[in-house]
């Protein structure tokens, strides 16, 4: 009997726990969105450090330095805000998914050198910024409840869109050099 109750209780806890967890970006709360944003910034900083370690192309290196400078600044603002609000960002499925994809990509890009690395890095930066910007503008900003968090995201999306434009030009320039 005790075993049966225990199994039922565990099953219930499991169901509740599954239901409480967001399964789509649109289901994330402000603290989970903040965690995703911090993670996405950190991943791009990680790619940039890889680029500085491998690339010798001045334009690629300049772009990478800008990514480190800007994404670090946004993360600093995010930390200041959550500290002020006395809250902690919450880990979630999307942050974990992004980190998993980044691990894989860093392993892949680490094997490349020269122009091959530059093209892969630039194309990834373009795709990554397009994807994250779409998510931030289309899902996160409309769903964020806290006005200060929303304001920070509205400021950040301007920065990230400029990065996307910069990445587009970098990709086009590298394609021209390679042709």
């Amino acid at each position: 009997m005790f075993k049966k109750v225990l199994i039922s209780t565990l099953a219930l806890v499991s169901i509740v726990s599954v239901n409480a967890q967001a399964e789509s970006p649109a289901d994330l709360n402000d603290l989970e969105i903040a965690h995703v944003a911090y993670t996405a910034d950190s991943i791009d900083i990680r790619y940039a450090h890889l680029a500085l370690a491998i690339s010798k192309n001045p334009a690629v290196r300049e772009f990478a330095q800008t990514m480190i400078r800007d994404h670090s600044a946004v993360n600093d603002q995010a930390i200041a805000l959550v500290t002020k609000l006395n809250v902690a960002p919450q880990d979630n499925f999307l942050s974990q998914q992004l980190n998993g994809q980044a691990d894989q990509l860093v392993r892949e890009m680490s094997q490349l050198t020269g122009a091959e690395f530059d093209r892969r890095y630039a194309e990834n930066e373009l795709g990554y910024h397009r994807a994250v910007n779409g998510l931030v503008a289309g899902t996160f900003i409309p769903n964020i409840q806290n006005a200060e968090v929303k304001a920070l995201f509205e400021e950040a999306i301007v920065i990230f869109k400029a990065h996307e434009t910069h990445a587009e030009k970098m990709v086009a320039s590298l394609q021209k050099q390679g042709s």
Partner: protein
Amino acid sequence: MGLIVAALAATITFHPALEAEASEEQRVIIEIRKFKFVPEALVVSPGDVVVWKNMDIVPHTATSTNGGWDSGAIEAGGEWETVVTEDMSDDYFCVFHPSMIATVGIESD
């Protein structure tokens, strides 16, 4: 007569337009806000002081496209100023974010 002179003096002292004319050199502010130089086009005269104020949360630069002048990094919340020279007229941009472009034109006497 004395009353008229006093009235004229008061008018000159407190009329802002006349005050601006009295000072030949101007201090002009360009705000860097939401990844734009505002205003994007500016006409100034040699001797004027142009100040770039960075209102964004990331650093920017104001850098001449022909390499004639360069602010270096203007930190978030920071500013950089320079005195306009006759050969300063140029397009300029942000080295960190090349899509940010603007122009400084020099007014000829």
